[in-house]
């Protein structure tokens, strides 16, 4: 009986013939087997002809207790139960599958809706990756590039995470996991609640209480009935236990919740994906920026240190040949540039003056930068000879000579004084010089001396271009002058009235004309001279220029990551972060920040002034703000300092830039001569000065707010010092009258006005014009302002750029940093005062500020060499002005100060006097004149701008924060409310249950 039932064919549609299980015993209905042959035999015989599309189903099992008939094969679907890492693994794996789906669909047209849908997922991700890549390449800097990918990553992450965030409370409240997946019989991953009309209840049959699928054996070891998971879910959903078909009721209720949850998901995803992505990307910004800053700097530092090492080796080895130096530095000339260079040099090495100029221009522009051309040309000429000029007798030459003849005559005739005109023959005044025919004749005659008369005639007649030799050239020159003079010889200018010739004017005229023509013809001949250049020497110059350029590039690459004011450099990152921290530590409220961000500088400085005044009133607050600010300033400054030391070095160790300078100068001297060396020296000195100034600016920018607070705190004292004491601290009754503008005020008025004035100038722009203008605004009627009060400028500068007060020093609590700030303030003061202003010029030469500055610098090792360099840079800058002798004197003076007076404390009174003298002399010497504008650029950022910028940044960020967290909060609230209302009876869902008596019956 069993066999009979097993022989009943049950059909199942089979779509892929490949899936036909050939090896399985196939027992088709007996009558179809011809001649009683077993079916398998036939199949083995004709393996290629599997034309049938159906295979019998598996036997249905025990016929006694199972219904007989058509029945699908059991489902192989299985719930997915994965932890976080497993799900990442399967996600990665699934993208591989999606790629296969794409291949099959796009190239073969095979696939189903499921597969095609997955291709869409793949393509959205690929497209987004493409967009990120394109946007990243459009960005200039690594952080901006990186953020494109971070943005992409957070976008997809938040897209993936949001349904899980929504799903968690839904699962906790109702036991329904809207993100639950299963793998269907065909191995496709799907969401259990994907299609509301398709409810695969079977997959829960052997799921344990946590939703983990078990094999039936395992399951029955733990539980005695099926669907325990659905039971639990039903309890959570509040489905009564004593109803019929409870599982079905639970599934219905679960699907209700799932539809609700997924609709909520779709309603909120459009908002939450960008919001969460934005928040996540923002959170990642700082670590990414830090990481990139650090790796970029370390990389650049390693490179420059490597360069430093190589420079040391070369300098020690004494190698000064440019080609060898190139080799040692591993510099290879770019073939493209070499080709351009070679194209500028003719093969025979003979080069016309114009081309010679072009070559010099090219080297100057392409490699060394402006200002080198003259020295370059000298070096080039050193390596070249001049050829004799090559003159061809041809039409061009003839025209040129005709023009010289005619122009010269006209020029001189115009110069004849009117009174003398009657002494010259009349025909001279409308004489046009030689004609072409006349020159033809001359040329033919000249040529005849070289080639004979007949040949010359032929050449002239046929207008052939022919070079002529030295003698012929001279003859040509002479003949042109003589021939031009021919029409008016002496005998033709006999003065008939006086019966005697007056030779003098005519003689002079003739001589002048002859000289002029000769000079012009000669100049023309000379202009046809060529350079015969030494190619090796030219290549050397080119290589030198290239090497110098390449070294500059290597140094600049380091500067770009560190101290340059460009995106993503260390400096830029400091500027992005630190002012905001200052702003925060100052404790501005939102209204004040808005004022700072949106109003003009005057209004902004009022806000600042108010806030500063409030802070200094509260002792604790003052201490805290100063401590915070100095902490931020220290980190910001120390980074830049490190980079500067790398480039310029300290007194113990030369910096890389210094070494480059030394090497290139000595190579230049060795191969190209002093001219190039001197030009280079000037260039490098200026660069060093520039770097140093950059460092000073940075310190000034970050220290200025601290100094401002310090001044606000000690305003009374400052005012007293300005009004009542002189710069040496001695009380002086007449000192106050030196401040012209204040002279007519009472003492209280003076103090009040000065207070307002000081507040204003420390908060606003640090330039003398601004100071003067402000003086005039503060003291209406005193139109002459500061310009007429040298003493007041000095006193005010002493306060604005003075040392910190004791309170502030105590609050900063870092002697070294305080010292750094004080020195910087003094440098700034000196720079500030050294401007083109007659009064101030006098002032600079009078005060001892410079002396103090130098003394302090002597005691501060890292700064010592910097300032030595900046000063020697300043001397170098004035070299042309000084002349060589004076230049050496001043330089010696500088060296003397820096070398001899190091241990300044140990010097005796006489020596001290000597230093004072020396320093003052140097200070006088270096009183180079800068314009006001340059000075204001040299100082750091003014306090108001500093805070305006910080406020704008902060406000933009606050706006973003408000919007993002507003959207986040709003959406979360709406979601929470919606989730709380899920799974309840409503318009769409009416729960009518058929109760049974025994609650135990529920569940099956």
């Amino acid at each position, binding site marked *: 009986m069993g066999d009979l039932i097993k022989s009943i064919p049950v059909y199942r549609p089979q779509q892929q013939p490949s899936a036909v299980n050939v090896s399985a015993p196939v027992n088709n209905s007996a009558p179809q087997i011809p001649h009683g042959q077993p079916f398998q035999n036939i199949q083995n015989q004709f393996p290629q002809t599997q034309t049938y599309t159906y295979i019998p189903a598996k036997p249905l099992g025990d016929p006694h207790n199972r219904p007989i008939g058509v029945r699908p094969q059991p489902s192989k679907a299985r719930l997915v139960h994965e932890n976080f890492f497993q799900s990442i693994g399967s996600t990665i794996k699934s993208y591989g599958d999606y790629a296969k789906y794409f291949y099959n669909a*796009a190239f073969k047209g095979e696939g*189903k809706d499921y597969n095609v849908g997955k*291709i869409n997922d793949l393509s959205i991700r690929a497209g987004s990756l493409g967009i990120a890549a*394109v946007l990243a390449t459009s960005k200039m800097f690594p952080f901006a590039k990186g953020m494109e990918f971070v943005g992409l990553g957070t976008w997809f992450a938040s897209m993936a995470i949001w349904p899980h965030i929504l799903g968690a409370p839904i699962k906790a409240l109702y036991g329904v996991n809207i993100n639950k997946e299963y793998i269907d019989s065909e191995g496709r991953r799907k969401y259990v609640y994907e*299609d509301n009309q398709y409810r695969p209840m079977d997959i829960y049959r052997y799921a344990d209480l946590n939703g983990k699928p078990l094999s039936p054996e395992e399951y029955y070891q733990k539980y005695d009935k099926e669907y325990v998971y659905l039971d639990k879910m039903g309890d959570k959903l509040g489905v009564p236990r004593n109803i019929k078909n409870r599982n079905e009721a639970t599934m219905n209720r679960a699907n209700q919740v799932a539809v609700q949850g997924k609709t909520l998901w779709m309603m909120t995803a459009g908002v939450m994906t960008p919001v969460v992505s934005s928040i996540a990307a923002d959170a990642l910004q700082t670590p990414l920026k830090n990481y990139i800053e650090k790796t970029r700097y370390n990389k650049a530092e390693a490179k420059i240190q490597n360069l430093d090492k190589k420079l040391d080796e070369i300098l020690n080895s004494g190698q000064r040949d440019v080609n060898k130096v190139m080799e040692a530095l591993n510099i290879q000339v770019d073939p493209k540039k070499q080709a351009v260079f070679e194209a500028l040099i003719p093969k025979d090495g003979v080069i016309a003056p114009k081309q010679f100029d072009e070559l010099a221009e090219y080297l100057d522009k392409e490699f060394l930068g402006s200002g080198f051309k003259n020295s370059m040309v000298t070096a080039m000429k050193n390596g070249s000879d001049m050829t004799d000029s090559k003159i061809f007798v041809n039409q061009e030459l003839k025209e040129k000579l005709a023009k010289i003849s005619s122009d010269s005559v006209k020029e001189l005739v115009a110069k004849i004084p009117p009174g003398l005109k009657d002494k010259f023959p009349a025909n001279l005044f409308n004489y046009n010089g030689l004609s072409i025919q006349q020159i033809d004749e001359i040329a033919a005659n000249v040529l005849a001396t070289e080639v004979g008369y007949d040949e010359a005639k032929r050449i002239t007649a046929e207008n052939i271009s022919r070079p002529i030799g030295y003698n012929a050239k001279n003859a040509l020159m002479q003949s042109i002058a003589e021939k031009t003079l021919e029409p008016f010889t002496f005998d033709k200018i006999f003065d008939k009235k006086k019966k005697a010739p007056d030779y003098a004017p005519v003689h002079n005229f003739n001589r002048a004309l002859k000289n002029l023509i000769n000079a012009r013809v000669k100049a023309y001949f000379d202009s046809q001279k060529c350079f015969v250049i030494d190619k090796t020497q030219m290549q050397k110059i080119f290589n030198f220029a290239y090497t110098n350029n390449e070294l500059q590039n290597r140094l600049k690459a380091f500067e770009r990551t560190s101290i340059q004011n460009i995106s993503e450099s260390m400096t830029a990152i400091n500027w992005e972060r630190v002012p905001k921290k200052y702003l925060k530590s100052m404790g501005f409220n939102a209204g004040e920040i808005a004022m700072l*961000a949106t109003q003009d500088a005057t209004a902004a400085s009022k806000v600042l002034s108010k806030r500063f005044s409030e802070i200094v009133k509260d002792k604790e607050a003052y201490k805290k703000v100063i401590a915070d600010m100095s902490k931020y300033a220290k980190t910001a400054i120390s980074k830049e300092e490190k980079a500067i030391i790398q480039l310029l070095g300290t007194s113990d160790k030369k910096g890389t830039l210094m070494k480059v300078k030394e090497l290139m100068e000595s190579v230049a001297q060795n191969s190209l001569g002093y001219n190039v060396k001197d030009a280079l020296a000037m260039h490098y000195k200026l660069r060093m000065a520039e770097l140093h100034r950059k460092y000073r600016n940075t310190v000034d920018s970050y220290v200025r707010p601290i100094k401002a607070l310090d001044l606000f705190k000690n305003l009374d004292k400052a005012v007293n010092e300005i009004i009542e004491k002189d710069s040496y601290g001695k009380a002086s009754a007449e000192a106050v009258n030196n401040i012209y503008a204040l002279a007519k005020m009472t003492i209280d008025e003076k103090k009040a006005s000065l207070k307002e004035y000081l507040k204003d100038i420390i908060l606003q722009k640090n330039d003398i014009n601004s100071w003067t203008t402000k003086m005039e605004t503060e003291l209406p009627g005193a139109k002459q302002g500061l310009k007429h009060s040298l003493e007041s400028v000095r006193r005010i500068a002493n306060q604005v750029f003075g040392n910190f007060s004791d309170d502030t020093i105590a609050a900063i609590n870092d002697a070294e940093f305080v010292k750094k700030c004080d020195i910087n303030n003094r440098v700034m003061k000196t720079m500030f005062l050294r401007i083109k202003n007659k009064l101030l010029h006098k002032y600079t030469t009078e005060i001892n500020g410079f002396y103090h500055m130098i003394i302090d610098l002597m005691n501060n090792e890292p700064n010592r060499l910097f300032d030595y360099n900046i000063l020697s840079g300043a001397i170098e800058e004035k070299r042309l002005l000084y002349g060589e002798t004076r230049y050496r004197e001043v330089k010696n003076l500088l060296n003397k100060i820096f070398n001899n007076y190091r241990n300044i404390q140990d010097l005796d009174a006489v020596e001290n006097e000597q230093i004072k003298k020396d320093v003052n002399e140097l200070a006088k010497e270096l009183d180079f004149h800068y314009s006001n504008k340059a000075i204001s650029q040299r100082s750091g950022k003014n306090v108001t701008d500093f805070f305006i910028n910080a406020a704008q940044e902060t406000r933009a960020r606050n706006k973003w924060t408000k919007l993002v967290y507003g959207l986040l909060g709003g959406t979360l609230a709406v979601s929470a409310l919606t989730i709380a209302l899920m799974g309840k009876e409503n318009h769409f869902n009416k729960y009518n249950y058929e109760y049974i008596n025994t609650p135990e019956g529920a569940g099956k």
Partner: protein
Amino acid sequence: MVTVSTIQNNQANHAVPSGSLPVISKSSLQPGFQGQKKLQEEENHSLSYYKNDIHKDELVKKNTLAKRIGINIEKTLDIPLIHFPRGLGGAPDYTFFEFLQTAKFPYYIGGPILAALFYAGVKKDNFRSAGAAQKVAKHMALGVGLYYVGAALAKSIINNTVKMSRGVDLKQPYAKYISKSSNKSGFFKKDVEFHTAFESADFTRVDLLYNEKGKTPEEINKYYIEYGKKYGIKDDANNIDSTIKPLIKKTIVMARAWQYALTAFFVTLGVGMANQPAWDKTSSEGFKKTVTEGIFGKDIKIKDRLHNAKVVAYDYILKPFGQSFTEFWKGHSKGSSIAGKSVILATAAATLTAISLLLTKTSAKDHKLETTGNNKIKEVQK
């Protein structure tokens, strides 16, 4: 050997409300093709005859752009007005189609919201940064805009290729009628949903492609004969439908795959172009003014309006569009030049590959036709 899916999508209309197993509809077991048409007709007939409130599904014959726009507007409005309320209520008859419709919502609002969030965080309190912020905003808005344009272009290239070469209009809408009376929670639910006939490869509505009014096989299979011409099949009018159907399925799968793939290329191209400086030459203020005051303003001569429309179309849109393409190709640095060139070339290559594959692989010439049995049914074998 590929057999034609015989599952009639009508079954989905009477969708399975619940159950422990996927229900295999009885029609899926029908082995033949010939009977199907008749059965279909009978079924439709009987449905509309006996139950007045149930209509049969039908193709939107007047498949014009205006009609499709109308349908799309209606479908879009349905998302917040019908699908969201029904979904939030957890309607038992909520369908997968409705879920897919709601999934379009985040797709369309996500990009603009991200752009808006980005713009909110940009400093714009001083003149310089305000100008820069405006530039950033413009590029972002353009990026979002050209993203959608790129996606639409990718789809339309494939749609047109398939329509011209095979006569299969992937956008062909059909109206699906939904019974209200059988549906207890009919509230919010309309009696008609617009789908497209070829939206599913598994359940393609090939049943709608018969000419119901026809009497002879030629008349009934009128559309299939037309498809046959395009596919390069000359077959018995009785059988042509069953020969065509697997080819249509294959066309759908291939076309959809390439639509998605090309979308990736074209959106990259679009965003890349939006990021070019060509768009900075004109101001969005000027654009707005020209449109609101120059074209739609009061008291303006028709001639001037036309001129302004031309200015908007050429100076503000076409010219920067063309320039941005060349700028994207050239790039402003080595990296961006490589990126621009490779995106443009890859897009072109992918488009050509897609078109050539669709033209060759879906053609009947690429398939071996063989006769299986006496009834002359031709099946298509790969």
